């Protein structure tokens, strides 16, 4: 009998203790968690940026005297900004077809003190063979003495380099409504007529202006056809702009 009472009381006491402990535990002050890991580096991807993970660079839309230019790769660190400059290493991947020194040039990269992000300049070079073929450069963030590679999916950046009228990155999603199906011949005509090769619609070029550019192209094409006849593209289709 007394053994049984003892047992019940024990259980009750244990339960009380447990509940009490649980209650008390909710009153412990939370300590801030600080980043104590090593510094990492990764490619910054902003959702709205069309060239967040890759970009196309065409010398075709540049003046003939432009023999080299710069493409920027945005990077960010994980961890705290340091009080001294830190080394960054970008390395071309094995998939790249671009040849260092002929199509591009990497520079020594350093994250300045007290910075947590920056744009790394990659020099692209106007090699004569780019008029015929497009080359591809994939750059990866690799471990340096200061940084470990960061977010696994955000370590690579692709750059396509050519010297002909290649399709702008936002053509299909944004520009096709105004300019229709892409062709090199059409894009060359657009560049010749408008003197523009990038159309940041709707961020910088509003709808109303895109409509204006479309109609301007339609008029220019009609004038051109009067002199040269129908304009045919590289696929054998007539160049037109949407109604």
């Amino acid at each position, binding site marked *: 009998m007394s053994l049984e009472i003892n047992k019940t009381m024990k259980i009750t006491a244990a339960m009380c203790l447990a509940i009490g402990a649980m209650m008390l535990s909710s009153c412990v002050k939370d300590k801030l968690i600080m980043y104590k890991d090593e510094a990492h580096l990764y490619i910054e991807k902003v959702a709205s940026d069309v060239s967040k993970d890759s970009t196309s660079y065409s010398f075709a839309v540049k003046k003939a005297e432009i023999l080299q230019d710069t493409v920027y790769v945005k990077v960010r660190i994980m961890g705290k900004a340091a009080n001294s400059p830190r080394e960054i290493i970008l390395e071309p991947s094995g998939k790249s077809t671009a040849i260092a020194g002929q199509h591009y040039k990497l520079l020594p990269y350093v994250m300045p003190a007290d910075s947590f992000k920056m744009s790394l300049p990659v020099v692209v070079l106007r090699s004569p063979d780019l008029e015929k073929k497009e080359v591809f450069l994939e750059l990866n963030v690799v471990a340096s003495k200061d940084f470990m590679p960061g977010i696994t999916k955000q370590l690579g950046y692709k750059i396509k380099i050519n010297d002909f009228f290649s399709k702008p990155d936002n053509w299909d999603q944004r520009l096709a409504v105004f300019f229709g199906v892409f062709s090199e011949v059409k894009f060359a005509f657009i560049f010749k007529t408008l003197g523009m090769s990038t159309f940041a619609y709707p961020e910088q070029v509003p*709808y*109303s202006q895109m409509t204006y550019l479309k109609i*301007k192209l339609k008029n220019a094409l009609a004038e051109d056809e009067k002199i040269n006849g129908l304009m045919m593209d590289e696929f054998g289709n007539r160049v037109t702009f949407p109604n």
Partner: protein
Amino acid sequence: MMKKYTAYMHFLFAVLLMLSSCAKDHGNYEYTKLNDVKIDSISDFSLMKFDSLKISPEVNQSESGHILSYEWKIYSPKTGKTKTLSKEKNLAVVITEEPITDAYELLFKVTDQTTGISEFKSFNLKVITPYSEGWMVLNRKGNDVDIDMVNPAGKVFSDVYKLSNGNAIPDGANRVYTYYGQQEQKVFVQTASDLLQLKGNDFIQIQNYNSLFYEQPSPGKPELYFLKNGGDREFIINDGLLYVMATNVPPPTRFGARIPGDYKAANFMAVGSKYPGIIYDEKNGGFLSLPANKSELTAFPLVEGAAFDMNKINKTLVFMQPAPVLDHFYALFKDPRNQSFHFYTINSNGTNPAVKYQPMANVPDIGRASTFTIASTLPLIYYAVDQKIYVYDVEMNAARKVYEIPDAAAHIVALRMLKGALVAGVNEGAEGALYYFDLAPTGNVSSNTKKISGLGNIIDMVYKPQ
């Protein structure tokens, strides 16, 4: 035994907990009746800028002796900002608010200092200018072309463009327009090479031809600014070519390049839901339509029951304006081969847009008509020749003279309808005047009710609502 006791204890404890929730609250609260403050309603006001606004509101309270504080605030729907006008009970201020299309909201707040409770009353204040509403009469005095405003009371405000902009309209002007866009009232003055957009209240110039376009047409030769009130597309015809600006897209919006095609647009347009942009192409002698969201003009389909072929008119468009029937437009054409006149009705929203056609008979002197206007409810077209006013009855297919200004040298330059009445802009020598006519149910002029003199030589006029 002990086990049972424990169980009882648990049970009792639970019951106690439950019961405690049923305890009646015997709190020692004291309820006192609060002072009840009432403000009598305050009517809405319409004032001009710099007018003084004096209001002595009726404020009553149920308890006497409470100290009340007062506050008058004005809220601008345009800026979204609120400003305190006064902290006195009786408002006496000079209104320095800018005239805007919407009314300002005024708020009168009375606070009982003892209780801290406030009572509110709001009302509207519309700030207008002397020329917010009335006839905008484009007229010439000597070498200067300007706008005279004739308000609904018949008072003339001379040279309001110069008053606001410091100079007469540059290069003269030939036409005035006023429309309601999607957001606001739009006022334009058209010169030989420019189109000036003015603020609706004070006629300060806000845009010119160059700023209306991404690329200004060359040569700059504006012939028409057109939009259907509240419509989402605006049109300009420049040198016979059509330009369009959609306003239902994210701003900013501007006019762009000319609509392609081999055409020459007459300076009249019709707009309806089905055909949201109808022009008459003088080059090919037919109507063309610019479908919604498109940039190419299209010919009209041939529909069964059509009174005529929209694509083959082959005459000169003399006049086209909205008819008394919804979405219908009356168009008058002249056949240059034999100087005959032809009447057409088109429906801008019909499966069959070609509603009616008749060669016009018995239309005295119509070839010399200086101006036309369409009656508000009847199928009638008024036209003026020198000092005479005729009315063309569409059903009768005949015109009759309805009025003749006694002064044989008078010259009617503009006929317009306003709320069922006919108003004529008349030049008598170098001076201009407005004649107001009441109309009989037949469309005849029943009386010349009013004449407003003191205007310059009239060029064009339009009624601008507030």
